[in-house]
């Protein structure tokens, strides 16, 4: 057990070092969410004039969605960087070392969560500057938990897929194919009421939905039953994905 923590720690430190040395990647990950926030936010400004629209300002509505978008994009890169390790033989070297193999997974997920938190932090500041406000009360705490859970969950899936596919191209294609629909089948960009009924139903099976709703609750400062349900579902989703990823690594050949 002690080994598990030390293995995870030293690997996490290594990944952190790599990120620290190539900070550009962290910023690149922010470009697309910023475009959404700044440009689409303006483009669809009129949306908030519609009757039944939940917020006065579309940017206010959009910010939680874009936060989750950042998490998704960031997490889907995690698998790609795993392939880098595979290609250089770094992974093989880890797999023949007498470490607890799940520490490879955990260090990667922690690192990804950490990077995404930094990205979101910068995004939250930009959003605040253009009038989206800040999370309120205990929301200031919970919002990071939500982000961490979703980041860990999705990067676990990305890592498992990478381990399974072993090729960069299909991984990127699948990553792209999944992230946008996941966003569209959620209330990230438009309120759930605006979606056709069948999409509303489908969105209930999408972890992104719960992430968006929970972050929105943080911004509103309203922590009622539905918030805690969302949190529970996010915990469950993260746990399941991590379990799945650990299993693929245990069997890794």
């Amino acid at each position, binding site marked *: 057990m002690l*080994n598990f923590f*030390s*293995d995870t720690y*030293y*690997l996490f430190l*290594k990944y952190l*070092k*790599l990120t620290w*040395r*190539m900070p550009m990647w962290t910023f690149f990950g922010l470009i697309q969410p910023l475009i959404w926030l700044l440009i689409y936010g303006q483009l669809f400004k009129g949306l908030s004039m519609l009757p039944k629209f939940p917020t006065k300002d579309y940017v206010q509505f959009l910010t939680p969605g874009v936060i989750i978008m950042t998490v998704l994009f960031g997490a889907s890169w995690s698998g790609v960087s795993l392939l880098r390790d595979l*290609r*250089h*033989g*770094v992974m*093989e*070297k*880890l*797999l*023949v*070392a*007498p*470490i607890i193999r799940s520490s490879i997974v955990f260090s990667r997920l922690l690192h990804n969560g950490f990077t995404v938190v930094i990205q979101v932090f910068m995004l939250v500041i930009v959003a605040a500057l253009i009038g989206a406000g800040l999370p309120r009360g205990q929301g200031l705490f919970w919002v990071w938990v939500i982000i961490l859970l979703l980041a860990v969950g999705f990067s676990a899936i990305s890592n498992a897929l990478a381990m399974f596919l072993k090729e960069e191209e299909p991984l990127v294609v699948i990553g792209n194919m999944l992230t946008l629909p996941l966003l569209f089948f959620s209330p990230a960009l438009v309120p759930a009421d605006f979606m056709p009924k069948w999409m509303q139903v489908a969105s209930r099976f999408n972890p992104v939905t719960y992430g968006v709703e929970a972050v929105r609750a943080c911004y509103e400062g309203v922590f009622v039953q539905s918030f805690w349900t969302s949190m529970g579902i996010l915990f469950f989703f993260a746990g399941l994905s991590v379990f799945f990823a650990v299993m693929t690594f245990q069997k890794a*050949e």
Partner: protein
Amino acid sequence: MIQIDHLIKEFDPGSGIRAIDDISFNVSQGEVFGFLGPNGAGKTTTIKILTTLLQPTMGEVTVAGYNVTDDPLGVRMSFGYIGQQSGVDPALTVSENMMLQGRLYHLPKKKIEERIETLLQLFDMQGRGGQWVGSLSGGLKRRLDIVTALIHEPKLLILDEPTTGLDPKSRSDLWAYLRRLNKEEGMTLFLTTHHLEEVDQLADRVGILDSGRIRVIGTPDELKDSLGHDAIHLKLTVAIDNKMLSTFREKEWFKEVIQHGEEIRLYLEKGQEYLSKVIQWLTELGLSAKSVLLARPTFDDVYLKYTGKNWLLAGETAEDEWGNNKWAQKWKKKGDTSESESGSDWEGGGGNGEDWKKWAGQEDSTGSDEQKSKAVQTEDASANSIQSPDNEDQPWKKWGDQANTEWAASDEKGSDQKWPESDETSKADGQKDKPSGKN
């Protein structure tokens, strides 16, 4: 140190397609064991099983006393591994890589720092601790791979094609380091390679692997001796066919007859004595030679003998598979140069037997076999190339036609005869069996 007992690996269990097809052998402490084989032979697969990256489908594999299936963690503690790809992180420095490696083997920081210093010194890399791995040359990077793998003081080093992609200088440097590790530290080395020279230079024992089977195991000398003391490389004015080959094979003089491209290689004892007889015999058969070369068998020849089956029978596919392989290209080049060299020598007039004898006497005590045969081809080529009488008006074909029916019958036998032999040796491997040539 390593015991492999009837190991079988099927990537797709139940498919019957075996990447490793029932191999058994042992590597003892302090030994350098070289695993030689073409692409796809199963070298990496074997190594992955030894290093617990893959599970055996069947069979027992023990490394340093630990069973790879039952105690993978014990196995992992006991060896250092240098994979086919580098494995050090290019975005970290030399010492950061080594520090991380030490941490992953759960050594205390102090100990790791000591090891880093000792190892960098041992591999002449002092002062490079702070250097980016990405900025290291190929040879240095490979050295770093070894250094990193040694951090936890293993007694066994497993290397998968350690010198592939290195220039000749870096390669021989690396050999020197490995040899020193073995001699001075008593390190057991298990390495795979495409380079015949590499096993010749390093290995105490060599296993030749082809299509997942061990064709033969022995010391480099044993393997070379299995071919007889000398080799005659023969290029004829007509195309080689199976009938011709079996004629050669049936001749009692030769221990082994192998076709290599346009060349027939005849392996025999006392090549000098027989050289003139062979040429005379060729004349009797109505054949004429474009070039004749007397050489010591090298690992090229040994390799050809034991994996040549691939080369000959699966001609096209083998070419394709090996087309973009450095090793194959190197070999091709070798063939080309010797061709052009001997070609030009012919113009300069055929040598004579006396010169040849002189050469043999001079060279006998010098250098490795590899060097010797190079000397044959370059410095003294005219002396040992002997032109046979020009017999072009008696084409081989005519002679072949006469005996057509006879040859057709013995044809298949001829080629079959040879290979089961090596199958036998592969079954009886494990013990140091000396392969029996064709005697």
